[in-house]
């Protein structure tokens, strides 16, 4: 597969502008049928970058789940006498301006980051995928209107639209997740619609239609399962993007509120003490960076796995 600008593949809709990076949409579907699964995982296993990405994601998930076990301290308990310490055996990443253990806060922050990465993707899946199926199967006026709305939504700079939505709804983690979910919707709708249009013309779908299957049944029984691999790829990349956008909102004070150890808010506070104790800012920053890197690598690997020619990409 070559990487022409994505918009050449869909001339009426200008380029794919994903949040943190533009995932290239495959021109043809790569069904994840049973026979292909083994091949898929074999290739994925050979992709060292993807494995590294998977390991990083796995680590974040484990830290998040086992946070109370892994973290040596309560992330919210203050201890002013120990404030602004550099790394030590007791506090591997030092302490913040309230004497809280930075390592414990980063570990608990993984919970917030995973939730704010996954929930907006679920929102986008729940809304975006049905809309994409609708646009792809309904055709005609419905399709045109839907796609114009999607194009319009894509015209807004993603972070700016998220800020504007939170500005109106009010700051807070819940509203931030809603905002990020909304900005994710168009990417899923566009993806699913494009794939649906291609799949519609395939033999087995035509056959199913010939024996009188309804559009809805076609979509749910045939088109959706065949898009699963793409949805997974897009989800992985979008989780990464969502984590970045939510961190940006928290960095601006619009996301998680104190004392929640959100990485974005920790980075903001660490910035204040950059001269005195750089680990306060570097630790949550590195956590965001590595988590996003992990999801990106995993997403890239998942996308390329069925197609060995792309491995060197």
């Amino acid at each position: 597969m070559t990487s022409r600008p994505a918009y050449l593949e869909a001339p009426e809709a200008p380029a794919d502008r994903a949040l943190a990076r533009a995932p290239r949409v495959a021109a043809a579907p790569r069904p994840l049928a049973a026979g292909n699964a083994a091949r898929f995982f074999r290739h994925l296993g050979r992709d060292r970058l993807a494995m590294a990405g998977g390991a990083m994601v796995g680590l974040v998930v484990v830290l998040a789940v086992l946070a109370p076990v892994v973290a040596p301290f309560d992330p919210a308990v203050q201890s002013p006498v120990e404030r602004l310490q550099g790394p030590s055996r007791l506090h591997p990443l030092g302490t913040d301006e309230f004497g809280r253990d930075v390592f414990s806060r980063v570990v608990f922050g993984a919970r917030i980051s995973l939730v704010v990465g996954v929930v907006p993707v679920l929102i986008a899946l729940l809304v975006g995928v049905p809309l994409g199926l609708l646009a792809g199967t309904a055709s005609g006026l419905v399709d045109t209107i839907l796609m114009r709305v999607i194009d319009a939504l894509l015209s807004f700079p993603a972070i700016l639209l998220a800020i504007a939505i939170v500005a109106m709804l009010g700051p807070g983690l819940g509203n931030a997740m809603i905002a990020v979910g909304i900005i994710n919707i168009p990417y899923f709708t566009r993806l699913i619609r494009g794939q649906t249009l291609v799949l519609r013309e395939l033999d087995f779908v035509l056959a199913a239609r010939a024996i009188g299957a309804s559009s809805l049944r076609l979509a749910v029984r045939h088109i959706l399962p065949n898009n699963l691999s793409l949805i997974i790829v897009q989800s992985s990349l979008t989780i990464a993007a969502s984590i970045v956008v939510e961190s940006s909102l928290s960095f601006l004070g619009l996301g998680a509120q104190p004392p929640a150890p959100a990485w974005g808010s920790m980075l903001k506070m660490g910035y204040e003490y950059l001269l005195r104790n750089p680990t306060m800012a570097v630790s949550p920053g590195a956590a965001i960076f590595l988590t996003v890197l992990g999801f990106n690598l995993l997403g890239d690997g998942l996308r390329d796995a069925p197609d060995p020619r792309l491995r060197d990409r």
Partner: protein
Amino acid sequence: MVVLALAASPPTPPGAMAASAPAPPAATPQRGGTITVGLVNQPDTLDPHRSAAGPDRHILFQIYDSLLRFDQALRVTPGQVKAWKARDELTFEFVLSDGLKFHDGSDLDAKAVAWNFDRMMNKSLKLVPYSDLVDVDRVVVVDRLTFQIKLKKPLAPLLALLADRAGMMISPAAWEKSGPDNYGRNPVGAGAFKFVEWRQADSVTLQRFDGYFVKGEPYVNKVVFKFIADAAVRAVSLQSGQIDILGDVPAAAVQALKADPGLRFYEAPGLQWSYFMFNTSKAPFDNVKVRQAVAWAVQRQALASSVHEDQASVAQGPFSPTSWAYDKKLDGYYRHDPARAKALLAEAGYGPSNPLKFQMLTTTDPTWQRQSEMVQADLRAIGVEATIQPYELATAIENMRNGTFQGMSLAFSGRADPDGNAFMRWHSTGTLNYMRYKSERMDQLLEASRRTYDPQKRAEIFKQVNRVMLEDLPLTFFTINKAQNATSKRVQNFMLIPDGMVRLSETWLGK
């Protein structure tokens, strides 16, 4: 007259002159150049009578100057008014300097002063100095430069008030021209610098006013106030020369700034006090027990050492330990006693099954956000769930004004005269009584404090005021913070006035 002199000159606060850097050697002042001042927040408004945000005064002083001034010992000295005397207890006569002009060319004469007082005393305009001036009957124009302030009742802090916002005269012509909605962004005063531009959230630029009444002053051509919210950036901007004067010195950077050989550091016991303010008209803080629980839960010493990096002392009232109104007997009135706090909460009907929850407002200034986070943690320790809502200063003030808050964690810039810390805040008619606090006893005390010009008697009354405050607790005090400024070495003849506000008419730039 003796009486008045006493009122005008409270005993010198010890240490008020103790700037840590030696005063620069006298040299011939040089002209020209631009001074850039780094501040945290942009002003709320540049209308001195509408402004309620302390930091606004950094800019207001340059634009307006004031009828009277404070010196470094916080004594009242001549300003735009060159001489004054008391005809009797209720009549004060003031003579303006000759040649006072507003930036728009109109005269600052007795008539303009009278117009300004009429405006401030107009209840319907709801201006901040209104409650300061409730005891003023009227201002009489005697001749072009002479006016009399006629009082309804004795008003002890009158002179101190004229050295603050109430003494900042705006150009009547400019106000009529701009109209009430726009004047705050198009200010015209008679100070050393005239207003040029306000870039939203970025900077306010002022330019030398050639018609300033002090001959030869000011020395610099331009003053730029830059708003930099981030403490580390603000400090490094000074160290690397992007700004010349740090108006709001971040506590976290004090050590580094003091150690920097390229800078001068000024400090004095300050007037600023930080607090947690309750909205006493609303649940849950309409119950004094709940307020007391908060007061007993807070670790004040930790606030002083963490949030203020030991650049502050624990406070039980609004008066600095160097003030003549300070009452040593109140030290330690509220201490950290979580058991007692929990018991008070239980009496008020809160407990593990019915935890107290409320929203704590603060500003986006990281110092007060940190204060709020520490208070939040102290409250969590007694089972109270407080959420923090940071607002831009202007929005925070608006919420206080409108009563749309439960608790507010913030600080007040403080005033040299004790009256300025108390009357506006706790008198039931006070314009800054955001607590909605009403107490007949307090009203009586505050009024009595204004009726005598004898500082001894005033001191006794203010000590009682402080005690009643602690009992009724419309707010609880945390710390009193030092006044600090840091400048680059090229800034000459900079003066730290302990109210923490920069005054730049005499300042000049060396090489």
